[in-house]
């Protein structure tokens, strides 16, 4: 027993006191900023491996971006990745960053059903479905619950059955082989319920967007409540997104 207490003491305080104020140090790649500098826009557009950049005016779509940083390496004076990790939103347009824009990515609170805040504001239980995920987003979703990030302090937890879940968190580009299981899981969750896409693969298909092995039609039939960009998203991106959605 004494040995255990010693170990706890030696490891010191490890939890992040306030995840809503915590910062992630550089070279972490978070929200992008695009300067007004003139560059060869064709070269800029074509350097992106995920076609996330468009020209005139230059825009980056974080729904497609996998944060590899290639554009910033090629055009360091044009593109910068800030360490701002609060990039979750409930509106796809908010993920499009335009030239010269330096504003935070927010949630559109008018899109959120008031019931969500009252029902899930103090307790939110989620079901996770990996549908072709590469186990990196899953890795970070797991990390949200560890002793460092301790998402459980907000009453947000992942549960073992859709029957007592308040929503689903989908990772991966949604493989054809998982499409039916995802649909069944979603239907098994009682209303009101949330549909959350976590990671670039889930949001847009990512690098697999053109693959014939995907079946993403479920996304046409549901209202997406939260997009959590990143490859994978940082745990703080996930936690802050969920907090802004539900409280």
């Amino acid at each position, binding site marked *: 027993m004494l040995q255990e207490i010693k170990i706890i003491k030696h*490891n010191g305080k490890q939890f992040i006191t306030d995840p809503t104020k915590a910062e992630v140090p550089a070279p972490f*790649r978070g929200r992008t900023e695009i300067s007004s500098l003139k560059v060869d826009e064709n070269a800029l557009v074509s350097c992106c491996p995920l076609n996330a950049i468009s020209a005139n005016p230059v825009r980056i779509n974080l729904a497609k971006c996998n944060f590899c*940083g290639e554009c910033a390496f090629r055009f360091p004076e044009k593109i910068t990745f800030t360490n701002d990790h609060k990039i979750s939103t409930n509106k796809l347009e908010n993920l499009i960053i335009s030239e010269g824009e330096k504003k935070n990515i927010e949630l559109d609170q008018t899109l959120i059903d008031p019931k969500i805040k009252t029902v899930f504001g103090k307790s939110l239980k989620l079901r996770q479905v990996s549908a072709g995920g590469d186990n990196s987003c899953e890795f*970070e979703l797991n990390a949200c619950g560890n002793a460092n990030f301790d998402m459980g302090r907000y009453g947000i937890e992942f549960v073992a059955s859709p029957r007592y879940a308040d929503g689903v968190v989908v990772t991966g580009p949604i493989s054809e082989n*998982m499409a039916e299981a995802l649909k069944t899981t979603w239907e098994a969750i009682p209303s009101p319920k949330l549909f959350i896409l976590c990671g670039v693969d889930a949001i847009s298909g990512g690098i*697999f967007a*053109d693959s*014939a092995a995907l079946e993403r039609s479920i996304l046409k039939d549901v209202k997406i409540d939260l997009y959590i960009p990143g490859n994978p998203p940082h745990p703080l991106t996930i936690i802050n997104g969920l907090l802004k959605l539900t409280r």
Partner: protein
Amino acid sequence: MVSENKKYCIIQNCKSIETDLIPVLNYADFSKEIIELLTLNENHCVTYFAFPQDDGLKFIAAIANDSTQNIFILSHFLPKNVEQELASLTPQINALHIFEREIHENFGVGFPGHPWLKPVRFAHNRADTNLKINDYPFYSIESNELHEVGVGPVHAGIIEPGHFRFICNGENVLHLEIQLGWQHRGVEQTLLDKQTLLQRNIVAESVAGDTTVGHSLAFAGIMESLAGIETATQLDIERSIALELERIAVHTADISALCTDVAYNLGASIFGILRTAIINQTQAWCGNRLGKGMIRTGGTHYPLTNQLKSQILQTLDKYEKQFVELAHLTYRLPSVENRFDDIGTVTEQQMRKIGAVGMVARMANIPRDVRKSHPSKAFVKHPYTPIVLPKGDVFSRFLLRRKEIKQSIFWIREVLKNEEFVHPSPKPVSDIALKPGRLAVSLVEGWRGEICHTAVTGKNGELVYYKIKDPSFHNWKALELSLRNLEISDFPINNKSYNLSYCGFDL
């Protein structure tokens, strides 16, 4: 180089060979050579696949020798206009079962004599698309005393999908069959379809996100060898340090997960915290906690500097102090030991039969480790001594992680002590021309074990085939074998003790 008997070619890790030089054997000779080679304990099959070429299928088998650094490449050609059937080699060499199943699923080639010719992953481009993932032919036993338990594809946690079918007598598991394929995203096809080097690199990073460094390193190795790029030893050292950090991080997380499953909360929390320290170090190096963006072809955006070097050393010192203190307590706790000891035991003979690689081989007395048998430049300059344990139970897999963490820390320290990083490694290359008509094999010892990437180029240097093999491709069978005659309630600790990859298998 062609072998003395002119039956196969001999190459080394990350070296390429002209495809025209590989003797194309008739199937009788091909089988005979494979069986002869694989009957020796020091050889094992690293990959065996087929791909469409001209008017038929080209078969390539790569067999690695653990003591000479050699990889033997054998080939066979099956024209379209003959019967699409080849006698199965699985009855003689069990380890080939999964490769023959894969070829059967992808191209419809029959393997008469194969005892278990079932679908592997229900790939989107499989030969028989009428067969759906819900039609998997599970093994079953007719009996009034037995019952079946089906779990998945979606599991009770944040875990990738897979279906487990147990046949039980009361609490006792007689048989477990694991059905995978749910995660299939078309990785290999996407890699071929993408045209730029960076896009392909990103696909390779996504084979298995928990092994980002391992798989992207295998990719970089193969591209560099096919393009004839000679990289400096320093670059390989930097990459290998990232590889070992990945190993330390995931091993620590697995130890934490095993503690969770036996309700040892102190271990679960604090090993988890220690894992965070390592992946945050990776983030401080390359901006991503899992090392995405770290490995690029021909160079790196994130060279290891002397400043980073001292930071890594500090992180490891701090980590090691806390790790050793906690491990010293955890590994002697009767409540932990009692749950792991003698549970889920597999034998060396079984593991040799299934062709186990990596940790799963080493916990069952098989000294198989690419870092030693087929070392890259970094491991030639700074040799690594693999850890091997004899017993093959859950405790061995739990203990192997502790020992490998210690060994990796030791290796990184030795390297960092002896290397100066004054001149930063070069930037990555943005475009490369692959040499035409060649084949290359790249082996990397990821934290799970041997990763094998194989690429074939066509007449104009275009990529005609790219084959990925995650260590889990061999090793899932070990979990099935572990469960035999075990209580079903011991499944979670066994599953965690292997921590095999779903997405790396499903591709």
